[in-house]
């Protein structure tokens, strides 16, 4: 619990209704979506204007109090879990205004707490498109997406959040306002600090505003589903689709474990013997879509797809994608604890990675289901366990260690889109180098000399 004087100061600054100090309230900001130990913060504050946000940061810096910025708290690597019991959590959920959507210049300006899906909807009403679509988009915030460089299903063709950040305003650790980037397509004024803020996980500054790039929406789309006897055939089909110069907007993958479990639950009559299902969607100009869908269908058949389904209308497409939508919900219902990973490998290495994931799960006697984004090699091996069973959970942790080793051996990465936070900090050096850690720490210490911004996250400070 924070000191009375500090609480009073915040209440005077933000209004009583935006300062949460009760034990019950503080306990509900002790966790995020990662399976990690909760840490109860000293206080939670909710600024409702950008000026207030800056004042909060300054106040905490002046008092030497660590701070964790939190949007929807959907982080999967612990980035929004307080560092210690002195931490004050700053909520961005009181800053939810879309300040501008500019259809002539194709950009939008938003406050940090705008919800991703709300923003995408507002943009689409003006017949524009904001492509990043992380799984949590219905509740996640834009600044959280930027701080984690959130990806999603459309990554292969449209990129991730970083590809849509044109400019950022943020408060540095001392509460001074920093501005980088602009509303123009080109801008080389000073360091690319906006780029530095992307995926900085709340360790370098507190985002107060973002200028986001918008694109014209695709005029048409076509979906296909293909069933394969094994992962290898599916992976070769993916490679051949790209080699045929078709870049689908989504290229999703379900493994056999996931297919069987989804079918058990939905009784949808999925091919239970299949090694893998690919769900593919191409989009763009109608003529191009028709041509590309034809190419994809041909490639799928040439790559020994057992079955290729092309939905005739939106209703059929909706049904076809049911399996993908249900993947996580169904896996999550199997066991009490769901550990969702996001190891990512070059897409040609998916078969090797899939084999390793299943071998590792067998070795540690664990249940795992894998689905993910085959187009960008971003897999979500999902371990199903019960964290209350200490022995089983230890085996999960060991399996994940081994899985990351394999991902790195295959020239992949620890995390495609969930971030490092505290969950994966210990593997950072293995993927990068000692120099990388030291450089990052020096960078942090220069920008945050008192070590107050999410201090234990990423490389630590």
């Amino acid at each position, binding site marked *: 619990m924070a000191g009375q004087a500090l609480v009073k100061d915040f209440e005077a600054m933000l209004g009583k209704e935006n300062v949460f100090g009760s034990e019950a309230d503080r306990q*509900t900001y*002790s*966790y995020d979506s990662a399976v990690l130990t909760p840490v109860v913060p000293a206080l939670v504050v909710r600024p409702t204007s950008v000026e207030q946000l800056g004042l909060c940061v300054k106040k905490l810096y002046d008092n030497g109090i660590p701070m964790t910025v939190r949007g929807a*708290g959907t982080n999967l690597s612990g980035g929004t879990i307080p560092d210690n019991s002195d931490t004050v959590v700053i909520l961005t959920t009181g800053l939810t205004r879309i300040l501008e959507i500019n259809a002539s210049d194709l950009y939008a300006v938003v406050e940090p707490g705008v*919800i991703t899906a709300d923003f995408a909807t507002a943009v689409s009403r003006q017949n524009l498109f904001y492509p990043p679509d992380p799984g949590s988009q*219905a509740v996640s915030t834009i600044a959280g997406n930027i701080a984690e460089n959130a990806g999603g299903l459309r990554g292969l063709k449209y990129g991730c959040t970083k590809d849509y950040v044109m400019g950022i305003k943020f408060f540095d650790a001392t509460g001074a306002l920093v501005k980088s980037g602009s509303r123009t397509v080109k801008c080389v004024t000073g360091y690319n600090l906006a780029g530095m803020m992307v995926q900085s996980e709340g360790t370098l500054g507190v985002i107060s505003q973002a200028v986001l790039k918008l694109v014209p929406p695709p005029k048409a789309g076509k979906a296909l589903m293909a069933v394969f006897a094994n992962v290898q055939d599916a992976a070769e089909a993916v490679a051949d689709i790209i080699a045929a110069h078709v870049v689908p907007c989504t290229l999703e993958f379900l493994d056999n474990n996931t297919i069987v479990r989804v079918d058990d639950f939905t009784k949808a009559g999925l091919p239970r013997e299949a090694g893998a299902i690919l769900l593919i969607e191409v989009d763009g100009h109608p003529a191009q879509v028709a041509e590309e869908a034809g190419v994809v269908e041909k490639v799928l058949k040439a790559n020994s797809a057992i079955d290729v389904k092309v939905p005739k209308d939106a209703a059929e497409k909706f049904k076809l994608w049911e399996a993908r939508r249900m993947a996580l*919900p169904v896996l999550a219902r199997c066991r009490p604890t769901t550990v969702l990973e996001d190891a990512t490998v070059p897409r040609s290495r998916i078969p090797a990675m899939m084999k390793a994931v299943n071998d590792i799960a067998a070795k540690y006697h664990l249940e795992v289901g894998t689905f993910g984004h085959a187009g960008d090699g971003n897999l979500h091996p999902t371990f199903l366990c019960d*964290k209350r069973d200490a022995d089983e959970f230890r085996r999960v942790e060991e399996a994940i260690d081994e899985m990351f080793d394999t991902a790195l051996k295959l020239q992949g990465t620890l995390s495609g889109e969930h971030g490092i936070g505290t969950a994966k900090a210990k593997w950072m050096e293995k993927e990068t180098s000692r120099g990388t850690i030291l450089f990052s720490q020096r960078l942090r210490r220069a920008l945050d000399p008192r070590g107050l911004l999410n201090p234990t996250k990423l490389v630590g400070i």
Partner: protein
Amino acid sequence: MNTLHDLAKRLMALEDRIVYCMKCGFCQGVCPMFGASGMEADVTRGKLVLISNLAHEMIRDPEAVADKLGRCLLCGSCQATCPPGVKIMDVFLEARELIYGYLGLNPVKKMIFRILLAKPALFNFAMRVSAPMQRMVFRKTGEAQGTACAPMLSFMLGDRHIRPLAATPLHAEYGFVDEPRSGDGLKVAFFPGCVGDKMYTDMAGACLKVLRHHKVAVYMPDKLACCGLPALSSGDAEGMLRELKTNLDALSASDFDYIMSPCASCTSCIREHWPRYAARLGSHEQKFARETAAKALDINAFLIDVLKVQPVRSNANAWAVTYHDSCHLKKTLGVASQPRALIAANPAYALTEMAEADRCCGCGGSFNLFHYDWSRRIGQRKRDNVVASGARIVAAACPACMMQLEDVLSHNHDPVLVRHTVELYAESLR
């Protein structure tokens, strides 16, 4: 045997269900309370953590947890979207029972649930005495909605704009009804619900008219008690059981194929909660409650799915009607297309969808009583969507939602009428 440690031990029984929460936070997107307050303790993920922490004695403040649990409409929106499918409503009701039981039920609530709502004769008497006196204290507010406010009763009613109680309640107008089947036709038990019996009697009357039109025999005992949901929501299982006992006794006096209510909350309570709680009354009661629950059907679903009422083409000058999905109807009973089809069965009306049609209106029954300010804030979002649809009528199939819609529309001086879907259909029948 009633220490905090005992409470914690009892709460541990919920842990096996709570542990499935993967803390994805998706409940934030649909929770009406969180939508209004933005506080994590108001959304399911936060509440489940608090129940679990109380069970593990990591928080030793049951009042604070009870207060947070009370800030919930029990609308079930979270459960309907929960990826791991946590049985959230059961957990919440059981947690309320344990924690409120430990703290002691508010004496006013105890009087209402265990005596007034469980004893039809007393409740009916109280309401009949008060109905004629309303004229003296109510002042008309919403012209379109027929609502009124009562400054003299503001200590009780706040600034609510509500319909006055009916001069003659439904049970007094119809008495004990037990019609014989026409040939081998259908027979249904009609459960008007407290609001249908005492406030929206025209609406309940319209339901009876529709049933008569379709030659469906009606069983409507005059000694029905409250369905029990308000008591359950307040954690008063004992009050609920008393009401349930009265209802089972009243219903066992005749036979019927279906039991239905114009109130989605009553129907969902009959189907979901009666069998579970009747187990505490005894095996005989449980068996009858189970049979009754299996016959529980929403009246819209009955008309469309069983009686095969067909949509017709709208007239050229048909009034635009928008439809509000009641939470207990869509999210608990899974009924969404039938009420819309029923609106389409009257050529004088044309359905026009509003945005967020299935977002909670903010009533939540007793939530409205104890958190009126939040209820109004949540209701305002619904009102904005209703008005933006351009419809002249908003239809719902739950009187609790109708009360809330009338309150918020009346406060905003909107000319939009509020009707039950069955009322709209009844107008098309000669």
